[in-house]
């Protein structure tokens, strides 16, 4: 046991471990804040869907031989997010179906484009890294960390500023629209923020982890807490705890970072589910 602690404290002195911790915590925090809304709006899979869209965009950028593919990826992902969250009464294809369509479609087109216009010899390796994180969380540069810090502060600021409005449009968009709340504008802001966070996180930690970070903390918190505010705060705290725990465990035991964080989230979810059942049984 003491062995592990000495090992951890040595590792914690390395900048790449510190970077991983900072970025991990920030991404966990941002995605869990938005996760509550997304899960409640029945968009749990948006992390997965939008990262596939980003993958498709990346393929297009590669085909067009863009040197800096970030702007194109961001624009395409933001447009997809806006289209997906525009849940009108009269949309012919419902949220979950359109999400699945865009997700699978973008993945297929992206892979197809990469195959036809193959530039690299290790195609399946490329695809794999986009799904599980193109730059692993343990190989971040100081610029990545700064970008992440700036964007996270922005996301958290926007979330706090629009907190009451986000609640209003999540609980009942039609009521908001009917009583003169600018629900469409707030939906748009929400979509942009989600797209930004997903593109950022996909590059840093991979699409597998970002989906889990959106879904698990929110669902765990919902088992136990009863108000929107407490659920939001709890899911943020849970998400950060799991991210730190997962990172430390993966460093100490050499397990893959993303999967370890997700595993920690799963364990916590079951603990909260049981707690929720126990509390729920006694109440009222």
């Amino acid at each position: 046991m003491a062995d592990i602690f000495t090992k951890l404290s040595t590792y914690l002195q390395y900048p790449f471990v510190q970077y991983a911790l900072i970025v991990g915590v920030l991404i966990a925090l941002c995605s869990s804040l938005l996760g509550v809304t997304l899960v409640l709006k029945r968009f749990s899979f948006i992390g997965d869907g939008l990262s596939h869209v980003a993958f498709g965009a990346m393929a297009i950028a590669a085909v067009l031989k863009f040197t800096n593919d970030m702007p194109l990826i961001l624009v395409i992902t933001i447009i997809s997010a806006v289209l997906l969250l525009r849940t009108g009464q009269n949309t012919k294809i419902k949220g979950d179906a359109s999400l699945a369509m865009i997700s699978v479609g973008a993945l297929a087109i992206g892979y197809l484009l990469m195959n036809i216009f193959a530039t690299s010899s290790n195609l399946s390796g490329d695809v794999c890294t986009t799904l599980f994180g193109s730059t692993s969380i343990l190989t971040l540069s100081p610029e990545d960390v700064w970008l992440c810090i700036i964007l996270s502060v922005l996301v958290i600021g926007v979330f706090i500023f629009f907190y009451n409005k986000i609640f209003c449009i999540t609980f009942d968009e039609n009521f908001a629209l009917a009583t003169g709340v600018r629900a469409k504008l707030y939906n748009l802001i929400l979509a942009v923020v989600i797209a930004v966070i997903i593109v950022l996180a996909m590059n840093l930690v991979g699409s597998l982890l970002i989906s889990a970070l959106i879904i698990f903390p929110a669902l765990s918190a919902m088992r136990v807490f009863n108000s929107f505010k407490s659920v939001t705060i709890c899911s943020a705290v849970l998400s950060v705890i799991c991210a730190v725990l997962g990172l430390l465990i993966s460093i100490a035991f050499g397990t893959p970072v993303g999967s370890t964080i997700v595993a920690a989230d799963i364990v916590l979810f079951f603990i909260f589910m049981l707690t929720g059942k126990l509390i729920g049984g006694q109440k009222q």
Partner: protein
Amino acid sequence: MSQLVVKDLCLGYEGREILHNLNFEVNKGDYLCIVGENGSGKSTLMKTLLGLQHPVSGKIITDEGFSKKGIGYLPQQTVIQKDFPASVLEIVLSGCQNKCGIRPFYTKAEKQKAIKCIEKLELQKFTHRCYRKLSGGQQQRVLLARALCAAEDILLLDEPVAGLDPIVTGEMYSLIEKLNKSGLTVIMISHDIQAAIRYADKILHIGNNIFFGTKEEYLESSQADTLVKGGARNG
């Protein structure tokens, strides 16, 4: 004084017209009940009145000074709301959102208004309880309290008693009556023709033959025959 005048309104969706040449007006303090068979376009009419949907043709003229910010709306419950983790206070307070504009947080006055609306609907003991753990009738009252927070002059109710048992239904109707007596205009969609006749003072019957007039005129009309007598037989 008319709050709302509807002129030659045609309604529909996806290019298909379902209601033609609708004409009626609502005065301040009216209690208007919209009745009609399933699929006759009651909900579409309400959505059009609320501006959630564009009319095919025709006009909805509103009184000067009347804006969306004065509307209170009680929609039918959505699936999302059934397991939504939110306290009663949070939900009722969200009714004040339309007065906020870009301001991020609620003022003290708005919080007090929410508490007052909660008291009006006798929900005090549930203020900090979770919405999803309340009964159907209590949930409906919470949504009505939220509508009250938003409403300055008019309340639109979309089947407020759907899925409630008879006792709770009665309570709901008397609550709405009380609100109407206190000066709020009420426009209600209902399946319950007996209640419509008992509480409303004006009836709009939509379907193949449109009728608009006072309750007394309605009972004399031919449109009433199918629904009222059918309803009486069933009841």
